[in-house]
């Protein structure tokens, strides 16, 4: 199963990549929304995990773009900071499938990914 991670925090992104790779997923990680869109133009991941606040192109824009394209059925998990519940609602209205609030545990991320993967 192929997963795309879009997260601008370098260490966190790498940790998510390592953790999910350890679970047997094929992971591609990018640091901003623009790179996520570029990747999505050429690849079709089975799941996308995107932070909401990212430079260049936000996670909301990534979700919105995906759901209008050929990726409309690809499940999306959005990562949001505590207190951004209103933004999460926007993400759901754009078509996001699940959300995780920061701070989160990597185990929680794995559980959510497995749930959507199944």
């Amino acid at each position, binding site marked *: 199963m192929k997963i795309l991670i879009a997260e601008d*925090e*370098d*260490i966190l992104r790498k*940790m998510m990549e390592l953790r999910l790779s350890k679970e047997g997923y094929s992971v591609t990680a990018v640091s901003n929304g623009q790179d996520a869109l570029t990747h999505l133009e050429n690849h079709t991941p089975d799941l996308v995990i995107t932070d909401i606040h990212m430079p260049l192109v936000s996670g909301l824009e990534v979700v919105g773009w995906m759901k209008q394209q050929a990726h409309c059925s690809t499940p999306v998990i959005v990562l949001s900071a505590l207190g951004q519940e209103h933004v999460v609602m926007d993400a759901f209205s754009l078509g996001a499938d699940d959300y995780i609030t920061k*701070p*989160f*545990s*990597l*185990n929680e991320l794995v559980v959510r990914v497995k749930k959507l993967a199944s």
Partner: protein
Amino acid sequence: MNEYALELHFSENLIWVFTAFVALVLLVLGAGILIMMRINRYKEEQRRQIRAQWKDLLAEMLMEENVGEQDLRLPPEFEAALQKPFVRRVLASELVRTQQSLRGNMNETITAVYNQLQLADQSLALLHSRKWHRKAKGIQQLSSMGQYQVAELIVDLTNHPNLSVRNEAQLGMIRLEGPDGLRFLNSLQHALSEWQQFNLLHQMQLYTGVELPDMDGWLLGSQQSVVVFAIRLCRLFQLFGYAGQIEGLQRHSNTAIRREANQCLHHWGLTELYTEEMLRKAMATPLAQPLTA
């Protein structure tokens, strides 16, 4: 006629000198801004490079089991880079940033790596900085990384003249000591703003179920914002044992305290929500006599 020509010539010269002076000032100012922008861009690029160089190593260290139990061995090039204060500053910031995004055991692991890299001295240097934003950052880093030995330094900063430093120090005390960190309220010299109270209550939410220090001193104290904050704490932690004291605070001379006390008791279902007019009248009601709408 000659005098007039001389005067005109002098005025023209004066205008030229003034124009040249303004142009020079603008030029220096512009150059200064450009240089600052260049420096900032250079520093940002440096930060980006450091983050890119270290992210794999740090992430792998954090994902390892038994972090902190064995001696840290870094590749030689990283060991050398770690001696540079700027690198240490970036690493400390990055670890704190990562810690804010993760919870559970990972927080302890991040603290262990921070300690192994001996980054506390860098954070301490920030805390001693004269610049308020660096001081606030130092407090945030040290308290997030559980550096308990600096608690007394941080408690002193809870009365710092700068609001951001005070705010960070107050939050830092709770991060370090949990509810016991609220001891800074005993010697608070500046009123707690609504924003500060919001942040403190938000931080305190992590400790629901933990026993709180005795609230009497704060509820019956003279600092209005502390009394309001104490009432809000009682409400948040459902400290019904203080209902009697809060009932008395409905008769307080301060409007904000009366209002907060009434709202707390109403939230607990112990009283009605009174109008300000009713609460003002209540000030004259003896304590023994219950308030009525």
